[in-house]
């Protein structure tokens, strides 16, 4: 019986619970600390799989948020909730300002000190195409430093401008990836055929 509820919770986490079952589950979870605890661990499992280590919310964070909201609400009681299709007047407080602040004054730093150099030429020499080598590049070894990462990321952005849209998507997504250059391959994703 509890298993069934917990399985529903798992499905809810994935957004795969039939809408008709959500109401009951949410209400059950609201009054069951153990269910909430398990739900929290389901979430933690996913986060840990995707981005191991690093900062995470401590135990009791969610409870603290709840308490903070309680404190605010008791300070100023809210009106009865009208039907959802009309203007939401439940919220007495003014809407939180979410306007994006304009960027502060920017310091443009020119790192380029143009040198008078010789003009260069690129000569293309036609030659026999290379045979197909089987090259195994060393995997692992020292991780790139942050400076190297930045350079690599910069290269990927520049490179992406010249790729096809799909290639650019790949190059730029990798430039944005949190920690380019460090291989953390643990699981091989199964192919979706």
């Amino acid at each position, binding site marked *: 019986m509890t298993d069934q509820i917990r399985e529903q919770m798992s499905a809810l986490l994935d957004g795969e619970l039939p809408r008709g079952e959500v109401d009951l589950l949410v209400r059950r979870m609201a009054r069951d600390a153990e269910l909430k605890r398990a739900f929290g661990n389901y979430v933690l499992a996913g986060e840990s799989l*995707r*981005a191991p280590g690093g900062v995470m919310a401590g135990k009791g964070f969610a409870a603290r948020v709840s308490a903070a909201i309680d404190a605010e609400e008791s300070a100023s009681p809210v009106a009865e909730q009208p039907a959802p299709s009309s203007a939401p007047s439940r919220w007495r407080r003014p809407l939180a300002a979410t306007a*994006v602040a304009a*960027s502060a004054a*920017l*310091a*443009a*730093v020119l*790192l*380029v000190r*143009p040198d008078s*150099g*010789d003009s*260069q*030429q*690129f*000569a*293309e*020499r036609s030659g026999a*195409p*290379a045979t*197909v*080598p*089987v*090259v195994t*590049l060393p995997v692992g070894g*020292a991780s*790139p430093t942050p*400076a*190297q990462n930045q*350079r*690599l*990321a*910069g*290269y*990927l*952005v*520049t*490179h992406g*401008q*010249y*790729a*096809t*849209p799909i290639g650019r*998507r*790949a190059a*730029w*997504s*990798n*430039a*944005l*990836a*949190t920690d*380019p250059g460090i291989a*953390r*391959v*643990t*699981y091989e*994703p199964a*192919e979706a055929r």
Partner: protein
Amino acid sequence: MRRGLVAIGCALIALATLPARAAGDDADDWLQRMTESLASLNYDGLFTHSSGAQSETMRIVHRVENGRSMERLVSLDGSGREIVRTPEEVHFYMPDRRVVLVEPRSDDGSLLRALPSPGPKLEALYTLSLRKGTRLLGRDVRVLDIKPRDGYRYGYRLWLDEQTAMPLRSEVVNGDGKAIEAIHFTRLEVGNRIGPRELEPAVDTAGFQWVRSGNRAEPRVAKGGWQVQRVPPGFRLVATRVQVVPGVPVPVHHLIFSDGFASVSVFIEPGPATGPAPPESATVGSANAFSTQVGGHVVTAVGEVPAATVRDIALSLAPIDVAASPAKPVSEPKNH
């Protein structure tokens, strides 16, 4: 719904400015269609970018106005990095390093630039095939398989929406048929009106270092120039330009090699005196990089191709020996 009607109106306008869509139902046509859609439609979506065990949520916003495109790619989970492409510039925000890299936008504004051109050249290097796929995001999809004929390039598997040809899922596939990287949309709006705010970065750049291109000066590199020796089959040099790379005090040469679908960039910069030597090889997702030092310079090749390919291309560059008779200079293709 009201919003829907407004969106339809805008989408109709968007469609009216679309280039003539590829007719026909071949794999080639679908590839063409997909590239056109990516280049010319408005869209706003969330996707998961995964490679190996890592995955990250990202958002992409793409808007086309007056024939020029703007794009914003945001990492929602980790670094907070963003790339924003305005009509004039590309900004790469790296809040983790408190740096913004600024490059002038390099494409000439033509939306369909760098379309992979199906035809004998591409067919020599890749086989394309099409099949019906399972529904994704509640949409009917076709699966386009792009298989390389040799080990110098990667394959792609693309799940294209039947109606818009947008890739709802795309995988980069290695020689063993294994997906080494995947992009999978969890939400996608196509053809809607996109407000300017959606293309503004969420990063507060106060105190950041802005690294811009200076004047286009000639880089201080080897006298006598460089030559390109044997490159992997199918790849040819398609452009050379000068680039400012943040962290390198002088401009560098940027060469672009392409096989018609995949592209590899090579950056040539002065030797180690300018900073830490890049690692010999690095991999992030489907992108591989390889660096080598030649004649007092650092040559780095980067691209969404197998590691051996970037290695071969990087190693294919050699400084021209001034004393020897000069090789025929390449007839400069587009110089950006």
